[in-house]
């Protein structure tokens, strides 16, 4: 029975939200201390928030603080590779930051047994003026390797990154791909007992990503404990033995990867394929647009969305921007995190958008999407360039694996799309050779 190497009990992290201003100036502090001593002086001393995530903003506008993480407890055993999943803003990165000792928790405690390496970003410590080899030493030292260790692994790091020819040029001359490969390579050769990884596998081109995933797999087979935050369900399924779902700052579920991923998708799906916001104050939006409803129903008026029925996305919103080129885009992503398609519509292209309530319908044809769960992002833009408002995973829907009018069920076929293609066949001539089975 393995030992517990990470134990966290009731970890919580609170960020105080200031008046939109990130930095204090000493002169402001002094000025306000003179003008209104009590309140302003106390609030002036509080630590201002740092990048609050999207979903946390809804309804939190009036509060002075926000709990990015509340009452989180977990236990991780040596050798486990644990995936941490959850929506953006759920608190996954905060959890990792606390376990990496980058920021201190507001409540609770954690105990860690063993050297921790944190990969929260690619290129930690790199300085553009220094050469590739100098940066390998610098970044390696910052990440926690000793000089001797770096020297020992130097050649391996350089060859994994495929930058042998450029190792003595300053990295400011590297292409972004080379830079990322070198940075990831240094980090990948860290050998701590516990590795905390935050979505860094999505760097570089496809070939390099495959290599990185392979390296992660190798690291996990060496018996290290890994905590892996990602949105990529495929990577999580491939690497992790266990998963944890973080929702709204708490551990909502923990268990096998299949179960937890299902819980995650269920969470996304139960928020429904139809959402209505009758009260504009609580509806998602900003000073440009405000959504009043969004529904995904089956095309052709059928009760259920099937492979052949297609779907219809209905959007109702209120527009506040008069006389612009207003456009709308939907993005559909499947449960593996694969972006299936992006589709846009120019609501007004002559600079004549009208303020008021609008309704839109978007028809997804049948025989396009394969069976499964999908989530929809909605973006409103101006001049097809500027973003006015964006909301991710606002609704989800499920395509059932049946086809009405073609028998009651179809075999579950793999593939992202399920097109109905036209096939043709003709017989040319009889042959004398007969294969007797």
């Amino acid at each position, binding site marked *: 029975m393995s030992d517990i190497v990470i134990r966290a009990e009731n970890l919580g992290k609170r960020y105080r939200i200031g008046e939109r201003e990130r930095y204090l100036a000493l002169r402001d502090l002094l000025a306000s201390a003179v003008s209104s001593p009590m309140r302003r002086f106390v609030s002036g001393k509080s630590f201002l928030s740092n990048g609050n995530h999207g979903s946390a903003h809804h309804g939190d506008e009036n509060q002075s603080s926000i709990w990015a993480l509340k009452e989180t407890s977990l236990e991780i055993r040596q050798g486990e590779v644990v995936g941490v999943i959850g929506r953006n803003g759920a608190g996954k990165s905060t959890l990792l930051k606390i376990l990496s000792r980058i920021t*201190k928790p507001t409540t609770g*405690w954690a105990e*860690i047994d063993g*050297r921790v390496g944190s990969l929260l970003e690619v290129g930690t410590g790199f300085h553009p*003026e*220094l050469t590739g080899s*100098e940066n390998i030493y610098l970044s390696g*030292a910052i990440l926690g*390797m*000793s000089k001797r260790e770096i020297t020992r692994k130097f050649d391996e790091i350089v060859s994994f990154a495929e930058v042998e020819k450029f190792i003595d040029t300053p990295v400011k001359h590297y292409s972004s791909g080379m830079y990322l490969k070198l940075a990831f390579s240094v980090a990948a050769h860290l050998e701590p007992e516990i590795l905390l990884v935050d979505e860094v596998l999505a760097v570089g081109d496809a070939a390099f990503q495959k290599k990185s995933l392979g390296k992660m797999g190798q690291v996990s087979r060496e018996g290290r404990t890994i905590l892996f935050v990602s949105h990529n369900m495929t990577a999580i399924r491939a690497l992790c033995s266990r998963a944890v779902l973080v929702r709204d700052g708490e551990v909502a579920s923990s268990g096998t990867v299949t179960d937890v991923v299902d819980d995650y998708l269920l969470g996304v799906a139960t928020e429904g394929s139809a959402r209505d916001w009758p009260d504009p104050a609580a509806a998602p939006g900003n000073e440009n647009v405000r959504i009043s409803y969004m529904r995904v129903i089956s095309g052709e008026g059928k009760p259920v969305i099937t492979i052949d029925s297609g779907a219809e996305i209905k959007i109702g919103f209120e527009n506040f921007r008069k006389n612009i080129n207003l456009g709308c885009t939907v993005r559909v992503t499947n449960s593996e995190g694969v972006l299936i398609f992006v589709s846009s519509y120019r609501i007004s292209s002559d600079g004549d958008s009208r303020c008021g309530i609008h309704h839109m319908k978007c028809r997804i044809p049948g025989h396009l999407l394969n069976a499964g769960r999908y989530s929809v992002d909605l973006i409103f833009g101006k001049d097809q360039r500027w973003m006015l408002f964006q909301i991710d995973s606002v609704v989800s829907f499920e395509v059932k694996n049946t086809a009405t009018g073609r028998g009651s069920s179809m075999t579950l076929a793999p593939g992202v799309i399920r097109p109905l293609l036209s096939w043709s066949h003709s017989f040319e001539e009889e042959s004398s050779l007969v294969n007797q089975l």
Partner: protein
Amino acid sequence: MQRLATLDFPSYRQKPARQRIAPPKDWLDLNLRELWNYRELLYFFVWRDLKVRYKQTAIGAAWAILQPFMTMLVFTLFFGRLAHIPSNGLPHPVFYYSALLAWTYFAGALQNSTTTIVENQRVITKVYFPRLLLPMAAVTSGLVDLGFGFIVFLGMLLYFKITPGGAILLMPFFLLLAVLTALGVGLWLSALNAVYRDVRYVVPFLIQFWMFASPVAYPSSLIPERWRWLYGLNPMSGVVEGFRWSLTGHGEPPSLLLAASTAMVLVLLAGGVMYFQKMEGTIADVV
């Protein structure tokens, strides 16, 4: 699964004892053992600062020598020749340069430590290491420049045919005092600047004012005897006089002055460490 025992740990970092992560305490929470474990990283930070600084300047290391030297020339001309400020029997250039060695180091260390936390915000928000290393590195990198300046000073001693005397053996003590002073003030400035971003604009004025409050351009013997203890509360008074005395053998061995300065340095350092530690837990949130 392969047992971890077969993996090798880098020899300089033994497997750490169980670490506990908890909300920050209010009092002094200094983990010296951890700082010692991270000494290689301190070296790398200093190495990086020096490498980057010298790669970016056209004259590189020469700047380390030019700065105190040029200031010394200006002082010799205006304070020495024109204003006739006394110099304790030393030739003016030597009088000023010996003090400027300490002062240039101190001013540079303050400038570097004020901005170090903010400049390194990317690293701070992504990796853990004792944040104390950053002001420590800022204060250490100036020592290399001090070394170059010292070589020039030896040349000056030869030129003016001055022999320092036995007091030069006490030089390391004054050097240590200079480093601790720079660190003490630097800790305050780096933590303050991380929270209140305009502190760095105050620092150049602070340094200028401080220089005139220290015996750089004039000897401390100008200060009346009964005020000398108050004058000594400026920690740099003790450092500068000490430098001058040990390097040249001239001037009085600073006694009350030095005692007051040393006490002040220790207070500044202790306060600096405490304030810095208080900021440390949340620096990643503010920066």
